[in-house]
């Protein structure tokens, strides 16, 4: 977990909700809505407080955690000329966009579902500033400031001033550091207000446990601040102490990410309910090599080794782990899910499927107990496993491992499943080599 992106709308809402506490003397007219359809937008316009949707020209953008929306031609700010977008235009555009698949310049594909709608803010290009902050390293945050915001900020990165701020800096030190580093090309008459905004911005970033926060551009007119575009990630480990400030904030799946399969969702749900850790990602449902690995580090090592020894990941079906002392029932459910996926189809080339039941030497997980769950799943799926031709390779150590290995060997033999079982005297990933060599011997 750790750093997770939030929607632009939610980021702006956090600003609005905390504005008076952090940005004294400045004014932020928070006019912004998040909708999923044109109809919803039209309805919103009838609610009190949202009259501006009918009276002001609008800007519409998808709000789905991807950037470069301007370059992707996904910002509606004009029909004929900038600033002429009406409520009806906006609703129509939203419905048009959400009715078809969109491909970004980066190649990410998907259907747009969430849109942020705001008033069009006329301003001059030289009023577009840039500000961002991130957690740089162990000792420092960094604040990025520039007088040249907008779409071309990356091209103009040499004009961005970076200020390292020690994480334990006092308010006075922060103020001093920022004031001393205000970009020289910010007009003299704006310097004070920009500096004040930058100082407040950093404290807001820090106190609300953002991991990354970028406003590009930010437009400052008098004492009015317009946050035109925003990107933000929160440190979700701080969730337990930020409940009141963040509220029920959403961490959406990034645009273009394939939706989780029902099996992955089921495991994720079981994981959320359990004190143990259950993770499953299906990489290739047609894959021939399936893994059932205990422990986070070990699961990575097995995946690495399969890719190394099988000459790539074409045959690797899944990635995942169970760890943290899962109950027998949880292990059974996890195993059944994997076995179910694995036994749906035979290998098109008629080869055996390989099930790697791996793991390092456990610190405290009772191996025999977790293996009982695996054996129960074997009993249910033995026939299907035989149908598709599954060969099993086991390697594990830790508390009670002798009994666990003996039990699983006996169970597989009783059920007529081919199995090879190894303990800590065998190198953790060596069963991957054996499995692949057995393939060759069979071929």
């Amino acid at each position, binding site marked *: 977990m750790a750093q997770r992106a939030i929607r632009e709308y939610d980021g702006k809402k956090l600003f609005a909700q905390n504005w008076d506490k952090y940005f004294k003397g400045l004014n932020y007219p928070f006019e912004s809505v998040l909708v999923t359809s044109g109809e919803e937008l039209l309805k919103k316009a009838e609610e009190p407080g949202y009259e501006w949707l009918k009276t002001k020209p609008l800007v519409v953008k998808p709000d789905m955690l991807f950037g470069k929306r301007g370059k992707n031609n996904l910002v509606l700010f004009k029909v004929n000329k900038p600033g002429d977008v009406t409520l009806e235009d906006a609703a129509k555009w939203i419905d048009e966009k959400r009715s078809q698949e969109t491909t970004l310049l980066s190649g990410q594909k998907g259907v747009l579902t969430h849109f942020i709608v705001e008033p069009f803010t006329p301003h001059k290009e030289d009023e577009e500033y840039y500000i961002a902050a991130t957690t740089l390293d162990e000792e420092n945050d960094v604040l990025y400031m520039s007088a040249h915001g907008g779409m071309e900020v990356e091209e103009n990165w040499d004009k961005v001033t970076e200020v390292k701020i020690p994480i334990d800096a006092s308010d006075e030190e922060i103020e001093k550091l920022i004031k001393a580093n205000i970009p020289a090309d910010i007009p003299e008459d704006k310097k004070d207000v920009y500096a004040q905004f930058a100082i407040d911005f950093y404290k807001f970033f820090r106190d609300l446990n953002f991991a990354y926060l970028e406003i590009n551009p930010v437009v400052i007119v008098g004492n009015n601040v317009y946050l035109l575009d925003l990107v933000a990630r929160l*440190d979700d480990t701080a969730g337990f102490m930020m409940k009141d400030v963040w509220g029920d904030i959403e961490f959406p799946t990034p645009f273009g990410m394939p939706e989780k399969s029902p099996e992955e969702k089921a495991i994720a749900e079981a994981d959320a309910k359990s004190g143990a850790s259950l993770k499953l990602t299906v990489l290739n449902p047609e894959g021939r090599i399936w893994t059932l690995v205990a422990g*986070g580090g070990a699961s990575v090592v097995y995946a690495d080794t399969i890719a190394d020894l099988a000459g790539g990941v074409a045959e690797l079906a899944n990635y995942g782990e169970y760890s943290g002392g899962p109950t027998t029932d949880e292990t059974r459910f996890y195993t059944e899910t994997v076995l179910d996926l694995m036994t749906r189809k035979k290998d098109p080339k008629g080869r055996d499927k390989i099930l790697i039941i791996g793991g390092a030497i456990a610190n405290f997980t009772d191996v025999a107990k977790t293996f009982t769950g695996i054996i129960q799943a074997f009993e249910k799926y033995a026939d299907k496993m035989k149908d598709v031709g599954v060969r099993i390779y086991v390697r594990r150590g830790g508390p009670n491992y002798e009994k666990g290995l003996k039990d699983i060997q006996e169970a597989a033999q009783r059920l007529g499943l081919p199995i090879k079982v190894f303990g800590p005297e065998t190198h953790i990933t060596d069963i991957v080599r054996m499995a692949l060599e057995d393939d060759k011997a069979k071929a």
Partner: protein
Amino acid sequence: MGLFTRDTQAIFWNNNRSAIQRMLDYDYVIKRDKPSVAAIVAPTSSNKFDKFFFGTDEVMIPIYRSTEEAAAAHPNADVLLNFASFRTAYDVTMDALKLPQFKTIMITAEGIPERLARIMNKTARDKGVLIIGPATVGAITPGAFKVANIGGTIENIVKSKLHRPGSCGLVTRSGGLFNELCNIIALNADGIADGVAIGGDRFVGSVFVDHLLRMEKDPNVKYMLLLGEVGGREEYKVIEAVKSGKITKPVIGWCIGTIAEHFSSGVQFGHAGASANADEETAVAKNKAMKEAGIHVPDSFNDLPHVIKGVYEELRGEGVIKDIEEPEVPPIPEDFAKALKAGKVRRPKHFVCTISDDRGEEATYAGYPISSVATPDTGKTIGDVISLLWFKKVYPRWAVDFIETVIKTVADHGPAVSGAHNAKVTARAGKSVVESLVTGLLTIGPRFGGAIDGAAKYFKYAYDNNMSPAEFLNYMKKQGIPIPGIGHRIKSVRNPDKRVEGLKKFAKEHFPSTPLLEYALEVEKLTTSKKDNLILNVDGTIGILMVDMWRALGYSEEEIDEFIESGTLNSFFILGRTIGFIGHVLDEKRLGMPMYRHPFDDILYDVQKAEEIK
């Protein structure tokens, strides 16, 4: 110098019993003089100490409410093992950093907010305190000191040669793979001299290079093994140290997570810290850079054992590594619970229980899960529960209904009877429900409620000895005992006790036979002919019908006598009347009646001046 010595002592924050026991088992195996845990901090515990095994003996480890108290009482303990949750681990560390005592703080919690973790780590660095973690299983200096669960079970520790110093310095991120690497190094070389799992969170207090530079100076470490991960740039600091000559001992290195190369994005392989934000943060790039810097890097994790063996054998050939004389390992006393489970030990039991069992998934009453007799849909009543728990039998419906009828019949008899009165007086003295209840129950005996026992006993005796009703009356007269269960204060033949009528009617209709009741009714005919109120009363009826019930259920005469002798019959009265007594006590509590004082005018005072005896 390794991270720890044989004199290192820790203060353990949180009473994690199994982890502390593992540390003490380790101490015993390596023959330490003092336990490695000096004290425990447990803010909410009310105990002053906890007991742990040290070999076959037990030692007491003191418990304190705060780190400050523990530190003050144990000034030599310079390691804090912070086992607080991610919610409190930061506060615990910051409090400890205010004390000058701790040189090393290990933090196990995973998912401390990043900003707090960074502040915690920086504060420690500024004060020269070494932080291990967060999100780690800890560290070990074999033969000297081990942190909590690192190394796993004691059997595995000995197998992985973690009970005595070897020659490798090991640094990993992952805790699970730390164990595995110790095993691999023990299988292919001579074990480790010092080892640290730095932790899986993005911001950890000490990093690979901190430990490798320390190990470079440690004469016991002859070569080092670094197991890194995809993500972050920590491995490059090690590469720099190797290139600049700060590290001269051989280093073996590998970064796990080369798999990430094959997938564009979206799949999180491994820890929170394990996500590459740039090309140079990938495992493949780091492995390549390490190799270029002269670090020994295998082609695949599966080849790591060969590389370890190669480096080890070379150093051994050069005479840098000497052969180790293996120390004798004392047999580790097996944990009783574990040995018992494995069927290796036995012990005579001090208690026996034949009625209920709470060891399984659900507690049972005489083999029946509670849920199978509890709710109305089971069709079972309190009578069924009594038959299971008192008699270990499933009684037929008529017997169960009779038991329940008895309980209901004796539940209360107003406030004036001695037990209820006692309970009320005690309740008014401000005592609790249980105290008031027992003062009532304590009056139950030969004169109050005891007639049930007595009636069963004497009527059964007379019947068994074939006494005629007249002979029985005579017998009782000779014994000088009024017949138990006969006589009522106001009820008589012409004004019968409806409770008795009900019981008799039920028995007649539902009992297979009622021989003792028939006999008792014959006796009643005789006694009532002498005096109208010498009827068979409710206590007598209950006692006698219980005997008839047990006979019909097939119990032997000896078994029935045993029931009577052990006070079973009286138990029905005690159980039933408890309902009434509790009612009276709650009644008093609700009424809020003041302390009771008996009026003078109701007491006959006849006090003579005491005679003096000379």
